């Protein structure tokens, strides 16, 4: 559950990025830092823990920032989050920002799971069909999942299109099991 605070920070940063026409650039910046925080549990706990002083936290964040090539605006935004003791919610801010950006750029993120590797042509085919379906530019992430046995599962936002053999077998199992 994303808090309203995260949404407010995301909206503020998104509006600045829109004014500067740097929506994707700033998104990539905060995505880098957010992924570091998500992947490192100790860092996440450290930033969320009020026992540690703000100066210490700020110092750590600055060291991380220095190792990444971020825009000044993003650096300032991250420092502001440290000062306001909100750096811990950066992953939520990233999600909100991405939603607003996708909305603004008419983009849709698609998560595609496949039982067998898909050729580039097939991926393009799927992408173009999904663009027809959603009316938006598709940004697709492909993931291999052999447990599907065959077919694909497409996640578009909250909608899931399941064309896997696993799903069909489950349907068959339910149908035969319920049949009297």
């Amino acid at each position, binding site marked *: 559950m994303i808090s309203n605070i995260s949404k407010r920070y995301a909206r503020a940063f998104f509006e600045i990025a829109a004014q500067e026409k740097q929506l994707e650039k700033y998104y990539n910046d905060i995505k880098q830092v957010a992924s570091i925080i998500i992947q490192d549990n100790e860092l996440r706990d450290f930033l969320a823990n009020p026992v540690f002083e703000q100066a210490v936290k700020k110092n750590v964040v600055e060291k991380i920032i220095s190792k990444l090539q971020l825009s000044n605006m993003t650096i300032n935004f991250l420092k502001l989050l440290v000062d306001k003791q909100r750096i811990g919610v950066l992953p939520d801010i990233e999600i909100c920002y991405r939603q607003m950006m996708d909305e603004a750029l008419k983009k849709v993120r698609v998560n595609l799971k496949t039982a067998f590797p898909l050729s580039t042509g097939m991926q393009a*085919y799927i992408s173009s*069909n999904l663009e027809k379906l959603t009316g938006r530019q598709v940004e697709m992430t492909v993931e291999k999942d052999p447990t599907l*046995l065959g077919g*694909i599962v497409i996640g578009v936002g909250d909608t899931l299109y399941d*064309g896997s053999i696993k799903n069909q077998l489950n349907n*068959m199992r339910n149908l035969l*099991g319920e049949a009297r």
Partner: protein
Amino acid sequence: MKNLFKSAQLFFLFSVLFLLLVSIGYASGGGEDSHEGSKWFDFFWKTLDFVILVGFLYWLMAARIKDFFVGRRQEIKDSLEKTVQQKAEAESKFREYSEKIDKASAEIAGIFEMIKAQGVAEKQKIIEDAEKIAKKMKEDAQMRTQQELKKASDQLRAEAVQLSVEMAEEILKRNITTQDHEAMVKEYMEKVVNKN
């Protein structure tokens, strides 16, 4: 007064006795003149004594004897009347007790009939209850049998389905190729786009 009467009687009794003794003595002493005449005289005196004695005894005892016999008769009469009365009373009592016995017998018969009727009703009720219970038991048993049958059938069906699906899964795993997969994806995408 009564004592005085008794004293007079005693006095009279002793006087008569004295007179008798005297007359007897006189009678026994007068036989010297004429033997034949003295016999008649003696007889006369003896007869006189006897008559006096009888008269005296009559005077003394008659009332009592009469009283005795009259009282006895009355007593017997009373006794008879009393007996008749007692008999009537006994008969009355007998009738009364007989009626009571009849009434009690009727009551006993009524109670017996009532108990019998109650027994019959109770018996009927027990039979009806037993029949109801038996019917319910039968229905329960039938239902349980049906449930068990259904459960077994469902279980069998589920196992058969599971086995079929597992077999299908194994066959698909072995036989599906990349080309099949791509064809399947293509078909599915067309279906999704057309449907939406």
